[in-house]
Structure formats: structure tokens, C-alpha cells
């Protein structure tokens, strides 16, 4: 394709001239400005975790306000909400992952076992759908289904004579974790299964053929061929789960949270929102999110280290 017999070196050199470089940097400029303003500048705001900052001070107050000797952090630990929110955050995540990861993995394995391609497509189409719907709507629908005022679940339980009067599911703290976990599972089981399906498709088919020749049945093939083949993927999902242990899905929990279920629904992310943007205690809110980020980094490093030791797979 090269005309006029130029060597690759000369062609690369074409780009080194001043005009080309100026054009390229001009093309990078809008994105660069946006990254600097919206991603880099806010990092200075972390300073207010260590300062006596008041909202009236405005943005410049980040620099001019006085240091307050870790008072914000002390306030986080002293808060009566501190232990409940840690318990809820870890509880929802740990219990959630213990249910979600195996359920999604099993769903993917079963999906892969379906012999009819058309039925498989149909199931995938139906189960992917909720992922594209917002939590406001999906969460709102769950609230409607769980409504004590003639909601579907209460109606069914009443007909089956399992309960004699409707339960206010959203208003009782003890149901909240389960509602969050199961609604999350229903919303994302299809989407979550993609990554496992891709891994299953990547397992060497000759291994399956060899197992068939050796007389392995379906279950044995899944257990001895497919599962070991996708173990690296499962490990990576576990690392992500551990690293994200302090992260809750704010968009989901905020929709489902109400004053009655707050003892079970207040997690770190909703606490930061409430204390920061509703009560305007910016210092305490920032201190909480900073603590969370540092702990999350430590968790990620730890999970990665353990995974590298045990299975030789890791993110870094």
C-alpha cells in the first residue's frame, strides 16, 4: 500500500512534526480539561476530612479552613450509627455474594446445558431485560409487589394460608437484607451470567470429548472439566466481591430505604449521603468516604495476594 517507497520509519516520522502534534493535542484538549476539572480537582476536597470546614466557606474554604486534629474521624467512630452501618454494609455484601455468586454460576452452567438454541436465546433475552431498567423502577415494582395493601406476595401467602394478615415487608428491618439481596439477584442474574458463559465457551472442547470417551456423564463433565476450566474467572469475581465489600449499590438501597427499615438499611454509602448532603456535615461525610476508600484498597490488595498464592490467578 505504501506509495513513493517510504520506509515505516519515515512514515512514523511524519507524525512528529509540529502541526500534527498540535492537532493531536487539540483533539485531546476537551477530554483533558474535563478530566482535570471533574476528576482531579475534587481530589483536593479530600482535605476537608481533616479540617473544620463549614459549607458557607465555599470551595476556597477547602484550603483556608483550619485543621481540626482528626475531629471528623473521631465523630464518625463515636456516632451511634457507626456499628449498625458497618454491620449492614458487610452483612448485605457478604450474605449477598454468598448467594449471588453461586446462583449466577449455576444459572450460567444450566443455561449452557440447554440443548435448544432457541429456548436458550429466549431465556437470555428475558433474564437480561431487568438489567437495563433503572433501580427506581425495578425497586419501585418490588415495593409494589411486597405491598401489604393487597400486593402480589401478600395475596399469594394469604391464599396459601401461610400468614393470616398481610406483612409490611418494607417496614420491618428484619426482611430488608433479604429483599435487597434477592431483588438484586433477580435483576442481574442474566447479566452476571455473561462473564461465566464466556469463560465456559473458552474451555477447550477436546477436554469434553476426552471425558465423553472416558464415559463421564453430564454432571461429571461439569464438575471435572467445566468448573476447573472456569476457576480463574470465578476467582476474579471473588476478588472483585471482596474488594467491593464496603461498596453497596446506593441507587438500589436508597430507593428501598425508609425510616422504618433504617436499622437494617443504613449502609456506609447512604450514611455519607445523609450526613453530607442532607445534614451538611461535609467534614464527617468526607472522612467516612476516605476511610472507606482506604479500607477498600487494603481489601483488594489482600484478596489479590491470597488468590495469587492459592490459585495463581490475580488482577495484578
Amino acid at each position, binding site marked *: 500500500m*505504501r506509495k513513493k517507497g517510504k520506509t515505516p520509519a519515515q512514515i512514523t516520522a511524519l507524525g512528529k512534526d509540529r502541526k500534527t502534534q498540535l492537532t493531536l493535542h487539540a483533539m485531546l484538549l476537551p477530554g483533558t480539561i474535563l478530566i482535570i476539572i471533574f476528576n482531579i480537582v475534587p481530589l483536593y476536597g479530600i482535605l476537608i476530612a481533616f479540617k473544620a470546614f463549614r459549607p458557607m466557606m465555599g470551595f476556597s474554604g*477547602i484550603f483556608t479552613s483550619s485543621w481540626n486534629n482528626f475531629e471528623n474521624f473521631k465523630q464518625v467512630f463515636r456516632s451511634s450509627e457507626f456499628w449498625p452501618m458497618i454491620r449492614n454494609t458487610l452483612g448485605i455484601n457478604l450474605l449477598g455474594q454468598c448467594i449471588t455468586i453461586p446462583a449466577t454460576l449455576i444459572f450460567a452452567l444450566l443455561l449452557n446445558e440447554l440443548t435448544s438454541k432457541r429456548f436458550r436465546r429466549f431465556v437470555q433475552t428475558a433474564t437480561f431485560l431487568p438489567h437495563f431498567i433503572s433501580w427506581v423502577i425495578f425497586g*419501585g415494582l418490588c415495593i409494589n409487589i411486597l405491598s401489604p*395493601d393487597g400486593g402480589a406476595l401478600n395475596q399469594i401467602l394469604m391464599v396459601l394460608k401461610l400468614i393470616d394478615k398481610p406483612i409490611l415487608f418494607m417496614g420491618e428491618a428484619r426482611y430488608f437484607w433479604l429483599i435487597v439481596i434477592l431483588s438484586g439477584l433477580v435483576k442481574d442474574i442474566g447479566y452476571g451470567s455473561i462473564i461465566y458463559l464466556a469463560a465456559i465457551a473458552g474451555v477447550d472442547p477436546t477436554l469434553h470429548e476426552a471425558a465423553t470417551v472416558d464415559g463421564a456423564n453430564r454432571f461429571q463433565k461439569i464438575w471435572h472439566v467445566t468448573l476447573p476450566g472456569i476457576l480463574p474467572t470465578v476467582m476474579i469475581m471473588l476478588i472483585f466481591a471482596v474488594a467491593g465489600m464496603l461498596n453497596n449499590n446506593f441507587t438500589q438501597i436508597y430507593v428501598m430505604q425508609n425510616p422504618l427499615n433504617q436499622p437494617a438499611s443504613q449502609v456506609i454509602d447512604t450514611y455519607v449521603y445523609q450526613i453530607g448532603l442532607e445534614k451538611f456535615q461535609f467534614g464527617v461525610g468526607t472522612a467516612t468516604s476516605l476511610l472507606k476508600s482506604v479500607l477498600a484498597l487494603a481489601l483488594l490488595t489482600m484478596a489479590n495476594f491470597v488468590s495469587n498464592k492459592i490459585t495463581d490467578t490475580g488482577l495484578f
Partner: protein
Amino acid sequence: MNNITISKAVSKTADAIIIAIMIIAVILTVYPFYYAVINSLNEGNDLLKGYVLLWPRKFTWDSWKAALSDSAILNALAVTASRTVIVTVFQLFITSMFAYAFSRPYLKHKKFYAALGFCSMYISGGIIPFFLLISALGLYDTYWVYIIPSLFGGFYNVIIFTSNYKAIPASLFESAKLDGAGEFRIFLSIVTPLTKPVLAALGVFSVVGLWNDYSTSLYYTQKPALQTLQYYILKLVKSRGALEQLQSSVAGNPEIAQLFSSIDGSGTVTAKSLELAAMVLATIPMVIMYPFAQKFFAQGMLVGSVKG
């Protein structure tokens, strides 16, 4: 021989069990939407007796009509739709242009841009510093807060674009250059038409994300005129939830219960049926987008996971 027949029978039973499980999964994921549709098409007054489970008892379009003529919903729809279109178009342009320049092997100071990009991906100041920034820039409680902070699609998308650009044969760039085309010209008339699939895929993701977003309204706006559709529905859900809890706490007192149910409204359209109709209407655009999204997003995810 006998063994084989047994194992075949076992395999058939297993197939049946798998199919049954899959059908249950499909019902669980699809039923909530079906539930919303049938209940929003049921007469509001009649809904006070309890939700319908399979089919409307008293069919009516009234709640849908009411939702479509509610000025607050129409305003929220306009805010959401305009924001979704504007941001998606500019975001794709700015991000792919950035990615093109970033992918050129002869770009000087590439390390600076890479460092900036990875920083933006992994470190964040959290919502409060961002809130202060939005206020300081004068974006708080203006329409611009929906546009300006979202104009850059994130460095992760840059990586996806870059890995797609690498698949374009180098000879194409070379001959364009020898013909005298500048970098911007190459980006616009050669690279962009060749990477339509990835533009479409990331565009679909962007549309879904923007349409479904409510936290921007929650964090950075106050004016009712700036509510997005999702935020408006969130407020409907939350206020009716609060009412329901009050109602059930006074369940023993029929007079107060009566009072509460009168707040809920009566007639063919009630707060409940309107809320459900609004939910269904807000879902329709996503359902229309869905076949495109489904087609692209497996692709998009694979590109990201293999080359990112």
C-alpha cells in the same frame, strides 16, 4: 446396553428439570413488568381492593392518559430525553476524538495523558468534594449539571475505543496521510465510519445509563422544573411508601384509615395507578432500545475484558 438406556433416561429428566428452572427464572424476571402493566391498566378505585395478579379486573387507559397529560411528568420527560440525547452525542464525539489522538503511536507526552486517565479511573474524591465543585462552578440547580460533568465518557471507554482503533490496518492511515489528510480529517472521515459498531455499542450504554440516572437530580438540584423522570418516579414511590406505612400503623382505626385512603385519591386514577403508569411509560424507551443493547453489549463487554 441397559446402562446406556438408564443414563439416557437420567439425562432426559435432567433436561426437564433444567427447563423447569429456566422457566421459573424467566417468570421471576419478567413478572414484575407484567405486574406493572396490568395494574396500571386497571381502574384506580378498584385497585384499592388489592393488586391484580394476572389480568385487569376493570380495564381502563385512564391512568396512562393521566400520566401522559401530567405536566410534571411531561416536563421530567423533556429534561430526561434532551439530556440523554445531548450528552450521548457530545460524549461519543469528545471521547472517541480523545481516544483517536491517544492511540497514535507518534503522540508526544503520551505518558501524561495515560497517567491522567488511570488516575481518573481509580481515584475519586467522593460525592462531597464533587458537590462542592459543582456549587463552585455555578452548576448547582441548573440544567447544565446534567450536561457538562458527563461530557467525557470516562477513560474506560477510551481504552475500548483504542483497542478498536488498533484493529484498523496501518496502511490505511499511511495512504491517507500521503494524500495530505490531517489528523482530524483522518479521525472524522476514515476512523469514525470504520468503528460504527463500537460507537453504537457505547452509545447504547450511555443512553441506558443517562435515562436511568436519578442521583444527579437527587444530589445537585432542587427546582421541580429540573427533575428527571426517574427522580420524579422515585418521589412518587417514596411518598406513597410513607403513606402505606402510616396506613398500616393505624390499621385498627377505620376513620383514620379512611382519611388516608382519601389522600391516595379516588376515581379511575389514584396515586397508585398513576405511579405504575409512570413506571411503565419510563420503561418503554428502554424496552425499545433493548434489542440493540443486547446485540452490542456482549461484544462491548468482551472487548473490554480481553483488551482492557
